[in-house]
Structure formats: structure tokens, C-alpha cells
């Protein structure tokens, strides 16, 4: 099991693997459109530690496909290749509404300590500084999906993990109008938050540091995080990816679509497997 001839791998590849490890075997998992890292993570999980996972592609709703490559748009037949079936829009969203979808990947230009995300606008909504694309299905789905795996690849900017989202598009654990329980939402809320610097889980409805990447310190993470970030004790190192997982990332994404989620400085980050070491593909 080698990742080609190389003994090293990139940050972008590792983030996909870290996201893959938030998936448990047997879960029904979905990602939204415009989410190459999540697509790749799901295919890696399905082909390693979660073979019984039910993989539903974003925007085509293709079930367990075997794409030759990840296309630059999520609504393309390329991602549907060899799918068992293609669900209807209604079938996927009804499944989520009745609590039948176990996990969804969600991102945001802004994410707060409670895992609320903003994909709608930066600045006031009546005169936005930046109008973002919008949330797709996240606003309703975040209320009912079993668990949410969040990710963000611009943590270092200092503008991504914020004290307060300018606009809440998708629901975290606590909103200004109350907690998930108070609002009667049956979904389980954010469980993981993976960034290019760290992996966080959620305790009592707040993000908590679980692992940092080996070239990053806890101080680095806290400096660019807009809210108080507790850390697990002891803070375990982020388990290395298995060479087989990295090889899968490369095979699935020959066009490097995942790389578009990262800034150039992050893409330059490389890591090496030590002699004889290598992680074991498993969920966190």
C-alpha cells in the first residue's frame, strides 16, 4: 500500500482524509454541491473503513457511484458513473426531513463556536459587503440530519471561525433564538469541525480542539479563532492518514478539484510518513 512512489502527502489530501474519518460505517451520508473535499472524503470512507456507508452525492443524488474523476461541478453525470440508483430531489430531502439522513457535510464562509454557519452574506444582509452563493438545502437539513460534519479551509485567515456570524444560514447547537432542543429540532447538530489547521469536536454545544496538524501549534489555532476555544486534554496528535487513503484521494481527484478549496500557502504544506508508520483507516 503505497501512495505512488512518494513518501509524502499534501495538506489538501490530509484534510480530505480527516473529513473521511468523521464518517461511521453504515451511515447514510450526503454532501452539498460545491464541496469537492466532502465528495472525496465520502468516497475515501466508503472504500476504506466504511464499506456499508450509503453514499449520496450532492446535487445529482446518485447513490454509491464509482466516478472515474471528480468533476469541477457537482451536477454532472461524471459523478454519477456506475451509480446503483439516482434518487429524486424529493426522495433525498424527505429522507433528511424525517431524520433518516445520518450525516451531512456543511461548510461556511463563517462558522461560530456553536457551529452555526454563514454561506449567505458578509456584512449586513440589506447591504452585503459580499453576497455569497447561498445555502442550498442546509437551512432545513441542519435541523433534522443526524450529525453534521463541518469543514472550513480558510481558518488561518482569521475571518472564518468567528465570534458571531453576520448571518446564520445553517443551524448549529445554539442560535440567538434558543438551543436546538428549545427550538424543537430533532437533528443531532454539529459533531466535527475540520479545518486546514485543526480538528474540533463539540462539547456542550461548543467547538473544542481535538487535534492540530503537526506543523501547527495550539497557539496558532487560537490566534486565528474568533471565539474562546477549549482544548481536549491531553491533546492527541492528529492520526496520520494511511497511504491507501491518500492513494484514493489522488485516484478519485486527478483534476485536483479539491485544491481549489485551499490557498496557495496551504497547498505548499507537505507531510511525511515516518519509517514503517502510517495511520490505520478508521473513524475518529
Amino acid at each position, binding site marked *: 500500500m503505497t501512495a505512488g512512489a512518494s513518501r509524502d502527502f499534501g495538506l489538501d489530501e490530509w484534510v480530505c482524509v480527516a473529513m473521511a474519518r468523521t464518517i461511521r460505517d453504515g451511515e447514510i451520508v450526503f454532501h452539498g454541491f460545491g464541496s469537492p473535499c466532502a465528495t472525496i472524503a465520502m468516497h475515501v470512507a466508503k472504500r476504506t473503513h466504511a464499506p456499508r456507508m450509503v453514499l449520496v452525492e450532492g446535487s445529482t443524488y446518485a447513490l454509491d457511484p464509482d466516478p472515474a474523476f471528480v468533476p469541477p461541478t457537482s*451536477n454532472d453525470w461524471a459523478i454519477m458513473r456506475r451509480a446503483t440508483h439516482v434518487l429524486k430531489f424529493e426522495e433525498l430531502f424527505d429522507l433528511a426531513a424525517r431524520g433518516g439522513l445520518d450525516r451531512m457535510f456543511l461548510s461556511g464562509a463563517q462558522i461560530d463556536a456553536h457551529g452555526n454557519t454563514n454561506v449567505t452574506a458578509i456584512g449586513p444582509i440589506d447591504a452585503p459587503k459580499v453576497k455569497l452563493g447561498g445555502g442550498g438545502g442546509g437551512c432545513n437539513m441542519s435541523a433534522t440530519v443526524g450529525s453534521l460534519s463541518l469543514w472550513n479551509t480558510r481558518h488561518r485567515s482569521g475571518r472564518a471561525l468567528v465570534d458571531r456570524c453576520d448571518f446564520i444560514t445553517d443551524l448549529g447547537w445554539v442560535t440567538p433564538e434558543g438551543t436546538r432542543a428549545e427550538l424543537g429540532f430533532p437533528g443531532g447538530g454539529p459533531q466535527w469541525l475540520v479545518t486546514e489547521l485543526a480538528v474540533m469536536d463539540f462539547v456542550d454545544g461548543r467547538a473544542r480542539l481535538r487535534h492540530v496538524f503537526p506543523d501547527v501549534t495550539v497557539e496558532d489555532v487560537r490566534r486565528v479563532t474568533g471565539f474562546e476555544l477549549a482544548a481536549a486534554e491531553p491533546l492527541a496528535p492528529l492520526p496520520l492518514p494511511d497511504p491507501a487513503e491518500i492513494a484514493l484521494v489522488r485516484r478519485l481527484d486527478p483534476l485536483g478539484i479539491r485544491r481549489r478549496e485551499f490557498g496557495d500557502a496551504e497547498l505548499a504544506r507537505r507531510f511525511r510518513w515516518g519509517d514503517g508508520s502510517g495511520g490505520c483507516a478508521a473513524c475518529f
Partner: protein
Amino acid sequence: MGAYTEPDKVRSLTDAAALVADGDTVAVGGALSAREPMALVRELIRQGRRNLHLVGSAHGIDVDLLVGAGAASVVEESYVGFEQDFGLAPAYRRAAESGRITLRESCCYTILQQLRAAEYGLPFLPVRGIIGTGIAGLHPEYREIECPFTGVPLVAVPALAPDVALIHALAADRRGNVHLARPLVLDERFTFASKKVVVTVERIASEAEVAAAGVVLPYFAVTAVVEAPHGAHPTSCYPHYAYDRRHLAEWVTAAATDEGIAGYLDRYVHGPGTEEGYLKVVGEERLEELTRWSESDQRWQELLS
């Protein structure tokens, strides 16, 4: 919705687009980079349509072009953009930031349930979520309600019956039976919820042929059919053709400025004057190239890179 029973619904693109009036609520079919009714979008712009209220799920160049051309004044979509492919939708973004359009950003399931309420003949349907998010503030028409059985808080979203649905499909017969390939996105729901349904198709086919391929939208719900080969270009219409990334890149670059939009419209919409003219500007060679995605995975990958 009345039943549309004329034996021959084939119309010119000009006549079909005229079924859309200024100020109409328009459901735009397809999604993102696939099967968007672009021939109709271009024709509406040529006809100078104004103040459209666009509704739908996740969209790309269709909505961005209508907004850029000044044809839309209200946008009620769940997303408008070009994913990780080309990022934010430049025309939509600028119009939203400068207040030239009214933002009614919505969510896929909310839109679905609003269309279903119209289909079911009900005034509303309840959904979960929304409470606690900013989306609620964009929709004074929603109402927070309490479930009469469990007391759980829910959001009542009103029935949505668009004035017109615009859909691009693979084939239809002259009576208006339509064959579509998955993903259907909201096209079936749009068809049954909307007052009028205008469908462009790659090809008008015989009733037997459409029946054999599979009728997805039945004739009685369809108002007009237009033969518009490559009518989804630059979005894809599989299995006929992949999307035209190069063209989308050209639009995204042009749409960064108002002058750029004017230049694009002049080159591709107003200048050619018709869809035949548009396809000539795009070029036969390019159109042919986009049909060759199925030759091999390698070929497909090259087209999309």
C-alpha cells in the same frame, strides 16, 4: 392549472417566450451547470422582459445572466453561483450588494414544500428549520406555528404556484409529452405547481418514441413545446452534451463589470438575434466537441478540465 389539450403545442421560441410576462414569478428548471433552459433565458432577454421574480433551488448562469441583463428584480433561489468551479456569481453578487435586486434567498426543502402545497391544493405546508436562522428575516410571508398535535414549533410556508415554469428536456412529442433524464431536480414539481409550463427540447419526436423513452411530464400539464437543439448550452444536457466550461469562464470574466455584461450580451444574445445565430457564434466545432464526452473517461476528463 388548466389542462392543456391542444393536439399541437409546437411553437417558435419567440412565441413561447412571449408566454412570460413582465413581473411574472418564473420557475427556472435544471440546476447549477446542468440542463438549464438557456435558449428561453436568452430569448427573454432579447424580448426585454423586466421585473421577473425567479424561484428555484441551486442555479448558475441562467439566473446570473437574467440578473445581469436586468430582467429579474426578485431572486428566491437557494443558491446562485459556480461552486468551486468559478466561485461567486458576479452579476448576482453585484446586484445583491448594490440593492438592485430584492434578495429572498430560500432553501431547497422550503421551496419543494411550497411547490407541493400548490400541487396538493393546500394553502401551506409546515417545515422544520428556519427558526433561529437569518433566512426567516428574508421571508415575512412565513409564519411560525405550533403543531396542533405535539406543540412542536414549525414554520408554515405558503403555497407557491409560479406563473410560468421554464424547462429544457431531451425530447417531446407535438402534444407535449416530455422525456427527461435524471437528475430531474425540481422540474416535475415545477410542472405540476406552475400555471404555465414552457418546455424547450433537443428534438421533437414521435409519440411512440417519447413513450418508449418514458414520459416524465405529461402533455396536459405542458403549455408549449419548442425545438431548441443545444438549448441548454453552455450548461450540460446529458446524454447529448457536457457543459461548456470555457464558455462559463468567459461569462464569469465578462460579468465582473457592467461593460463586460453588455459586451457578452451583444456578442451572444442581442447581436445574433436568434438561437440559430447564437449557435453559430459558439461554433459548430465546439458544440460537436461537447457531445464527445462519452468516447472515454479520458476524453470526458479533458472536456471538463
